[in-house]
């Protein structure tokens, strides 16, 4: 059976360079970067190299990159750590109601500690209004955490304008962005875009699972939330997962080589949208200007889970809502005001550079078959 993997926002297939870099570290360069001997120094050199590669990709200094276990850990450390370190400056935090759960749960924790958290609501296209944001920023605001690209519908925020607003408002706020779905897909330039902290994950860009990174602008203080042997400047203690970190670097190297992959994904997205538009039981939930990697749709009166299972039985893998919120109605689709019956029938298709137009034809063929065959609710 043919396999068509269209769930690349959940995770991706590891690319060849990531695989070979990982293997090399596991087989040959297996030292502990903290060891004093040559084997340790070699591992440390590799670690430095990985840091440089990731740093270069987002235009920062390698000392500003901290390797983490992935997006969730990056978000937790950035939010909880910076709030703790900036408590003396103010009490207000601004975020949105459509963040990933690793941001929302961390915010709930801060609320319990007495912080005032403001959740900005998106419009029906998933967009966060900059003027609303501006009106919330004040002198007591210490942190703004906004998702670069939304993981369920692919809407994104114009991050580069925010730093200016903060400065005009004369606010001590720093800007964190959860860029897990943006990293490697839209241009990220932390210096030009005025970003103070940025969360990344390797397995969304064809790297291995279990590794990610947090960019923290030089001079910014973060209270550690984990304690141990002092690795990663004390922020993420524990022996570095070198095979995964090396794989992360491999994935970034391949990204840099495949400069036109976003254009290809854009074409595939357009092709898919065009074919979907022919079927009047399909509703497209992603806004017109969403990132081309993510396409959220609803299929009239067919439950998400049923359609996902049906496609899965034909080797086509899509997501029934966000893979992390099994069983619950999506908070993102609810926030953009989608009626319940459309939420219950939503599926997320997410593309990668490995997908082809033939994949889309195959997907559309079975989607249509499902629409004709499956019993409606």
């Amino acid at each position: 059976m043919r396999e068509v993997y269209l769930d690349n926002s959940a995770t991706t297939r590891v690319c060849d360079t990531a695989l070979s870099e990982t293997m090399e570290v596991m087989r040959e360069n297996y030292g502990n970067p903290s060891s004093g001997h040559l084997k340790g120094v070699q591992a440390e050199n590799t670690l430095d190299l990985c840091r440089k590669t990731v740093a270069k990709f987002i235009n920062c200094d390698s000392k500003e990159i901290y390797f983490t276990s992935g997006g969730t850990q990056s978000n937790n450390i950035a939010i909880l750590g910076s709030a703790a370190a900036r408590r003396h400056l103010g009490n207000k935090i601004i975020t949105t109601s459509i963040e990933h759960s690793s941001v929302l749960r961390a915010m709930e924790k801060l609320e319990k500690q007495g912080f005032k958290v403001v959740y900005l609501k998106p419009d029906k296209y998933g967009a966060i209004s900059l003027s609303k944001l501006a009106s919330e920023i004040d002198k007591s605001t210490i942190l703004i955490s906004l998702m670069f690209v939304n993981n369920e519908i692919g809407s994104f925020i114009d991050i580069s304008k925010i730093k200016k607003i903060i400065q005009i408002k004369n606010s001590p706020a720093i800007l964190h962005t959860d860029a897990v779905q943006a990293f490697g897909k839209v241009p990220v330039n932390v210096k030009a875009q005025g970003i103070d902290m940025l969360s990344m994950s390797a397995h969304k860009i064809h790297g291995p699972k279990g590794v990610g990174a947090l960019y923290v602008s030089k001079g910014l203080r973060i209270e550690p939330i984990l304690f141990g042997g002092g690795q990663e400047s004390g922020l993420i203690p524990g022996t570095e997962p070198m095979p995964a970190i090396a794989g992360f670097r491999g994935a970034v190297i391949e990204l840099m080589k495949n400069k036109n992959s976003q254009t290809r994904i854009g074409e595939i997205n357009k092709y898919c949208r065009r074919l979907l538009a022919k079927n009047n039981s399909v509703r497209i939930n992603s806004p017109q200007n969403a990132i081309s990697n993510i396409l959220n749709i609803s299929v009239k009166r067919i439950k998400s889970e049923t359609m996902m299972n049906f496609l899965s039985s034909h080797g086509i893998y899509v997501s029934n809502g966000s893979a992390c919120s099994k069983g619950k109605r999506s908070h993102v689709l609810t926030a953009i005001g989608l009626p319940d019956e459309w939420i219950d029938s939503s599926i997320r298709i997410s593309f990668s550079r490995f997908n082809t137009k033939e994949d889309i034809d195959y997907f559309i063929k079975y989607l249509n078959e499902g629409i004709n065959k499956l019993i409606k609710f």
Partner: protein
Amino acid sequence: MKEVILIKIGEVVLKGLNKRSFEHKLINDIKNRIESFGSYDVKLSQSTISIKPLSDASSIDDILPSVKKVLGISSLSRAFLCDKNLDDIKQTIVESLGDILGSLQTFKVEAKRSDKKFYMTSPEISKEIGWFILQKFPNLKVNVHNPDITVTVEIRDLGAYIRYGAEKGIGGLPKASSGNAAILISGGIDSPVAAFMMAKRGIKLTAVHFASPPYTSIRAEKKVIELLEKISEFSGYIKLFIVPFTKIQEKIRKVCPEEFFTLIMRRIMMNISEKIALNEGCSALITGESLGQVASQTLEAIVCTDCAVSMPVFRPLIGMDKEEIITISKRIGTYDISIQPFEDCCTVFVPKHPKTKPKKEQVETAESKENWDILIEDALQNLNIVDIKQ
């Protein structure tokens, strides 16, 4: 001093002439469970089973969790075995619990003499041992109503046993001592509890699960397997039949009136289960129905589903509240698995307004619009079998 496990057997004691065969099943169940942990001597005498490690490598701690799951035992305790004379008994008490006795405030001694040839009566033993403990541990006072610790001395044929309290066992009858029956299992909270309760009465279980992909997911099947693995910790091996049910459910949806969807579905499920059960040598079906819990479990609805089969249907939860069922499911460890949110065959195509007081004739008329035999035969030809090992 030897540490052993002392097991009191439950209802089996009350059996008449076939008591032997029940005891035999119970002992075999224990032996099979502990076999892989080392070498142990399992002896039955005077309605009490003692398990004695035969080597230093065979420990009591290793086997205790699995022994606790044996069906048919009313209580179990760790005990210390010694010779039947007072000096040995006293010495064993000091050796086994001396340090703890030294830190408590009150105690009581209970003596039981099932070896009637022993030269002292139970009250005499209690008095003697109690006096000894009082002298040896000046910190202790006697409290017969609410003591910190109860020291029990049992004089049995095989020796003297000293134990400190006992734990309740699962109860019921020995594993697979009452014949075979088939449980209809969905993945919810109720059916695993029903399966456990009948296993506890000595039923050897066969399980039937209905899968309707793509309306139900592979994870729903995984969930049922996990649930049965929990049950099998008590009941032993279970053969699971997964019935492909999609075509039948789609057909019900197409040809039957909506208000009867669930009832007709349940009647067909019972019918298929009965066929599987007969083939597997089962004499009854088991369901997790509880009277009035949902529309398909009203008295009228149960009358309608019951008459779809000729085999007896056991419904051990029929008179229980949801709370009571949940309590048992938490105790046997199935609750956390049951509450995982996956669609199962019972939640697919649920009618908006199901008939709560259906008449048998109405359902039969609605059902007769279609010849189900071909679809049922097709499902039976494509059963998926999973072995659930203890």
